[in-house]
């Protein structure tokens, strides 16, 4: 039973919201405005912004709709971390704030800025379209509505978590690849692609995959896990990315793209030596011509600075390599079995 429901009587704190401002009509560059308001425990960042808008400055612009963590409208960076303003408690943020009493509110990154905390979502929608983020049903349209597909709980569970995604774009904002390359597919779009590809009702798995293995696609991810860490719905996005890569290798082979070759080179090295043979990695991934054309200047620089990786014959196997190999083979076998059962 509830002991006390009067938690929010516990007083107020003066909090300064340092809000990112930019109106393209008048501002040549962004700036910050400070708004200091009293905030009780239990109040969210969104409620605070609403208060500022209604009582102090009506021109502060941000999106908000359901205010309950379901619609995904109010994604923004709060003290540097992308999240939903409506489910973020002010006091929780304050407790971890580097500057006491100050909460910095900024727009999401990696999407074009429109005004203040509002960014353009069109590029994300465009990528969903580019990568066919929909089910292309095996059932002809004319037959629809007559009978159900029979789907096991096991299959449902494979995409259940992925369908939690509300496209808030927190992962897009946190993605380190997108910071360097705006054309990169985006974590949310990879997640949705995965969700479609493990659905037995879908008929365009191979076509979608063919697009995903191209440049800016699934092989560009560098496993920084920031998407997964920032996901407001705690969706294991990296599992989806790994799932797509396993699919790609299985159905398109190891020599399909530089991405799959790169992954294969890792596998070979790890199995053989327990560590990477870095010197030949670019050649095995992208071929000799590409490596000479693209990496020669860097190789020269590395030689000058004596930072070249050891030549392959000098890379010794790690200690306990025999036991390691047994474990490694067992593991790959497990993954294969796992994959087979998913395919059923």
């Amino acid at each position, binding site marked *: 039973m*509830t002991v006390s*429901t*009067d*938690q*929010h009587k516990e007083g107020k704190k003066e909090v300064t919201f340092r809000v990112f401002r930019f*109106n393209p*009509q*008048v501002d040549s560059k962004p700036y910050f405005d400070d708004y200091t308001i009293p905030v009780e425990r*239990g109040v*969210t960042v969104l409620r605070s912004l609403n208060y500022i808008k*209604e*009582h102090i*400055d*009506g*021109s502060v*612009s*941000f*999106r*908000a*709709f*359901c*205010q*309950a*963590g*379901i*619609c995904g*409208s109010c994604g923004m960076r709060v003290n540097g971390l992308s999240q939903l303003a409506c*489910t973020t*408690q002010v006091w929780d943020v304050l407790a971890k704030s580097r500057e006491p009493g100050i909460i910095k509110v900024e727009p999401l990154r990696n999407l074009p800025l*429109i*005004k203040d905390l509002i960014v353009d*979502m069109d590029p994300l*929608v465009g990528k*969903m379209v580019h990568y*066919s*983020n*929909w*089910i*292309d*049903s095996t*059932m002809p349209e004319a*037959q*629809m*509505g*007559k009978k*159900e*597909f*029979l*789907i*096991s*709980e096991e299959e*449902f569970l494979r*995409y*259940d978590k992925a*369908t939690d995604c*509300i*496209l808030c774009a927190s992962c897009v904002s946190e993605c380190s690849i997108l910071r360097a390359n705006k054309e990169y597919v985006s974590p949310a779009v990879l997640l949705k692609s995965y969700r*479609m590809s493990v*659905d037995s*009702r879908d008929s365009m798995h191979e076509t979608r995959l063919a697009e995903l293995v191209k440049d800016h696609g699934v092989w560009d991810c560098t496993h920084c896990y920031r998407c997964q860490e920032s996901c407001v719905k705690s969706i294991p996005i990296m599992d989806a990315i790994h799932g797509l890569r396993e699919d790609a290798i299985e159905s398109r082979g190891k020599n399909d793209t530089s991405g799959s070759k790169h992954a294969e080179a890792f596998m070979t090295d790890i199995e053989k030596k327990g560590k990477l043979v870095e010197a030949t990695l670019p050649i095995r991934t992208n071929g000799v011509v590409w490596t000479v054309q693209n990496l020669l200047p860097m190789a020269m620089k590395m030689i000058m600075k004596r930072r070249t990786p050891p030549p392959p014959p000098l890379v010794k196997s790690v200690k306990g390599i025999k036991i390691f190999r047994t474990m490694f083979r067992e593991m790959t076998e497990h993954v294969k079995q796992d994959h087979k059962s998913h395919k059923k």
Partner: protein
Amino acid sequence: MKPFDIVIVGGGGAGLYAAMEAMKTNPALNIAVLSKVYPNRSHTSAAQGGANAALGNKAKDDTVEMHIFDTIKGSDYLADQDAVDVLCSEAPKIIRELENMGTPWSRMEDNTIAQRPFGGAGRPRCCYCSDKTGHTILQTLYEQCLKKGVIFFNEYFALNLSVGGSRSNGLIAMNMKTGKVEAFPAKTVILATGGYAKMYWNRSSNAAGNTGDGQAIAYRAGIPLKDMEFVQFHPTGLRKSGLLVTEGARGEGGYLLNKDGERFMSRYAPEKMELGPRDLVSRSLETEILQGRGFDSPAGKYLHLDLTHLGADLIKSRLPQIREMAMNFEGVDPIEEPIPVRPTAHYSMGGIDTDNQTRTVMEGVYAAGECGCVSVHGANRLGGNSLLDILVFGRIAGRTAAEEAGKFTPGRISEAELAAQFEEIRGGMHPSGRYERYGELREELGQTLALNVGIFRESSLLQKGISDIAELKERFKKVRISDSSDVFNTNLMQVLELKNMLDLAETVAAGAYARQESRGSHTRIDFPVRDDANWHKHTLATLVKGNVTLGEKPVTMGRYELQERTY
């Protein structure tokens, strides 16, 4: 802009289904969907519980006929029986259709679509995807629309229909990204903007944008609104925010308890207990609170929704969103403690008057979903029937508009009309001297509605409500927009939404004052019984010379005679 064959206003379940069906019916048509948010943000996503369809997966003896009867009885016999026929007969087909397109329904052991019990239903027929049913349906529809190449105008705020004689020339809307007022000349317009229950503001479970824009647009164009007085209060809103705890929580076995720890529903619905229909359960909670058996808190009186006996596993697997919300907005983990709840304005049964094919009285204008009123919900909607409504009638709207678009010549909207619209919204809202804050007006509107036009209504309360609304409308004339920017002026948008809510609040209060009986969600303390002799009819609210004018429309009966409604 080139005239459209169909302009759909609203990108929720009804609007998206309409778009999809219209393209299917005639792929050559030029169709646009306008939405003030990205379609995947629409409030359809908040529907947690599920959609009813007599699939018979869970209860083999369930039938469409039983679904029809439950819906008519649930409506307190105000639903039109031919419309309910359409709703329930189409249900199994449309749920399977969604399934065929990829909606991730939860599954039974035999791998068919899972179903669970819901309030007011004789059989467990509510199809669901854990507690994110609306979200997954909306995702599916949005994905399929993208697949079909539907043209979206996202973040456009609809302002008005352009009316020429007995028909509409199309729609006028503001592009939020530029602030420009743009014309959408069209042969047909489908209004599918959702409900108006957000006028109760903090005492509402709705999204901030559920401000009845479509109904207000229709009303200003002279199209009658039907049964506006019927606003459903959901029994279990979170105490502080009004946000919703799905009926699924009770469907899974949750208890409602008062401060004495008593399962008080035994007094009001001894058979169905917590799974009585919404209006009855809401009144029961309100009565418990009024009679002093609620808990006290600075945020108001409340009761307990207890899930603790269901166990951590079930709560985590079946009600994860509810758990998250209870923790985020009340600081309570339902695995360990009961959730503080009280009734919250949740759904608008009333809406734009349409026929069974979603046609309004204005040629070429259609309305569907919560925005329209066919009527399938009558005086009270059953849980699980609203998702169904938007799907079934969204599809019908798309098909009807696609079939009828050819009958109409494309409309023309003049530059002068656009300029006048622009002047109206941007010119007059910078009063000098004393001015009003829209945030305060909005909160006061919610308060007076909750107090005077709420669950329990009475003549003098309603009079107070009506005069409060009139006063707020007067004060609205002095409202000021402090943001002068053209780009994404959310300040302006919120003021325009408030204007829509004020217009509609008048029709809700007027209908409630006129209807001297108690039926479904509408409870008059001074007229406590249902009065079939005088009030078995729909009310119609029409704007005539700036004032609400009430008319009436008979209820279409069918196989089911009027009966007393007990559970």
